[in-house]
């Protein structure tokens, strides 16, 4: 017979021990103290595992107690007065909460004049000229080397027309030209696909600014009219600065963060 069945067989034949139930009761009562002793004395990983199990039990017990305490009478309305009151016509709609981005144009103008900007990326890796340009050989014997092709992403305006090929020194390939950028608003944490209006400043030099090269750290101006921003004077804001945060020539897209 299996080991544990002997006890059962004895109980069947002779019944329980006279003090069996009392001993059982007392042992169970002592269990509480025993558990508490283990909880306090257990060390190391064993202690941690035990503590975790014990906490789960505690949480479950609390929940069941709360459930029992809840009265069965249904309360008619929610009594708390919440923040962020909205009128009745907006109550059933979930509108995206947008932080109010009312910029002070005077402050902006002053900052612009000073030429100082607090930018998210103050220092960027300088890009060397041989990395930026690829030398193109031209001429019948391919000895002339005055042409350069830009290897980074660029922005040319909508009305851009190339110079006559015989005279153009810097070639901006159309495959590397971008018109839109993914601009993230730092506070809203939302990204919008906005049109680039122009390149304001490239930290590598004014030549690159005039060429419209987009490298990491370049300040660009983007069209924010779709965000619906209004100045305190009531004018609609349609252009804001943003700083490029990635290497567009590697990723194939221009990512930027809006400068508020």
């Amino acid at each position, binding site marked *: 017979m299996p080991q544990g069945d002997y006890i059962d067989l004895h109980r069947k034949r002779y019944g329980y021990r006279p003090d069996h139930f009392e001993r059982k009761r007392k042992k169970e009562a002592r269990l509480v103290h025993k558990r508490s002793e283990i909880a306090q004395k257990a060390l190391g990983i064993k202690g941690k595992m035990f503590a975790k199990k014990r906490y789960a039990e505690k949480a479950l017990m609390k929940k069941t107690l709360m459930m029992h305490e809840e009265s069965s009478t249904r309360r008619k*309305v929610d009594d708390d007065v919440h923040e962020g009151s909205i009128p009745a016509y907006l*109550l059933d709609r979930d509108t995206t909460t947008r932080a*109010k981005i009312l910029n002070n144009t005077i402050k902006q103008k002053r900052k612009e004049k000073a030429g100082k900007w607090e930018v998210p990326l103050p220092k960027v890796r300088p890009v060397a000229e041989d990395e930026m340009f690829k030398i193109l050989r031209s001429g019948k014997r391919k000895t002339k080397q005055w042409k350069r092709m830009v290897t980074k992403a660029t922005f040319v305006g909508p009305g851009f027309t190339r110079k006559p090929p015989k005279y153009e020194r810097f070639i901006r390939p159309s495959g590397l030209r971008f018109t839109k950028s993914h601009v993230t608003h730092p506070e809203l944490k939302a990204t919008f696909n906005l049109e680039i209006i122009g390149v304001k400043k490239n930290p590598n030099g004014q030549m690159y600014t005039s060429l419209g090269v987009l490298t990491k750290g370049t300040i660009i101006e983007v069209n924010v009219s779709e965000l619906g921003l*209004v100045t305190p004077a009531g004018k609609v804001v349609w252009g804001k600065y943003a700083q490029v945060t990635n290497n567009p020539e590697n990723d194939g897209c221009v990512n930027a963060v809006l400068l508020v």
Partner: protein
Amino acid sequence: MTMEVEGGEGKGKTMLCLLTDPDGNPLGTPVNFPLNTEPQHLQQIVNQLRQNEERLPYAFYIADKELVESLGKFAEKNKISVEKVLHIVYQPQAVFRIRPVHRCSATIAGHTEAVLSVAFSPDGQQLASGSGDTTVRLWDLNTQTPLFTCTGHKNWVLAIAWSPDGKYLVSGSKAGELQCWDPRTGKPSGNPLIGHKKWITGISWEPVHLSAPCRRFVSASKDGDARIWDVTLRKSVVCLSGHTLAVTCVKWGGDGFIYTGSQDCTIKVWETTQGKLIRELKGHGHWVNSLTLSTEYILRTGAFDHTGKQYSSPEEMKQAALERYNKMKGNSPERLVSGSDDFTMFLWEPFLKKQPKTRMTGHQQPINHVCFSPDGQWIASASFDTSVKLWNGTTGKFVAAFRGHVGPVYQISWSADSRLLVSGSKDSTLKVWDIKARALKLDLPGHADEVFAVDWSPDGQKVASGGKDRVLKLWMG
């Protein structure tokens, strides 16, 4: 005054025209007008033919197009044949002219949470606003300072409504309770009226020409029913249940019916003595957001008009209100316009039939607010697609779109002479639009956050607006 009628060959010289009033009845017989008649000449003629004692202004419309230059130029532009009789419809314009408001005369702080609703009293002397801080505040218009603060609500005050005789102000809150206030002392007149289980979405009083002094009003709630309350008995007399989803708006019509629009896409017409459902107007594909009646302005202002006359007894008020109402209504039935989340509006004549008269499409986002002009000629609609559209008040045909806002337009309000329209939007600006020129008249920036409520006072002097920035702004001309 004699008109020089130049004879018969007439192709280049005169045109045969017949003046008709808005209902279609002709005024006089067809007359040959020379082609250089201007609207002011036509005005003089109409005044004479109607034997008006004072010179009343009129606007003239040929096939829904307004006549602004001489007849000849109009005919050339629109290639009208001079052989047939031309019907010229004349529309009476308001005698008084409201000056557009263009400056913010006061920014009154006082509320500690966003201002959710703003309403002028029917005589234009008092202003009340309800807010998210659970109070209703009354403002003094002469000194532009707070007058009374009425506390007592348990949650945000979502809707307020003045009784048409100006004696009571009722406010409804998010907790589903309504409270009556005495506007002269700012004290509540009685305990809160409990009955609704969820928040109140709209309140409308019984017109004063049906019963004076004003006793009953109807309130709509999210729990799907509308209740008629009596302020003297201080309890709910009838409960209009039937809608399966929230009732978003309710209007008490001048002919004694109650119209309720709901999120279950239907509009129900109720009878007021027993609360029986008379008609159900189906047609919308999504929530019905807003209702407006052609006589709404008259019902709201009751017996008060631009002359500012005060009435001593309720019977006098009832009589005067009845006269005004009949004059405004004329022979045509009351029209109802409903704006919905399905981007369209319907023009109904609920007295006549269940089918809508016209479907007004064109908006690209849900329509939040529709409003008839005070003279019933125009319908304006404000939508989340940032535009305000103007429609013809009798036929429902599209007239013009007002673009300029960069955020959803929340509320609109007409000036008392129907010539100007103010709109408040999420982009924190208010814009005043000129109806005659069909263009933007003025921009009113100044709010720091979304504008939730606008109201133009019935005497046309002031516009009040409130929003999320917790201040109430008063704009004056």
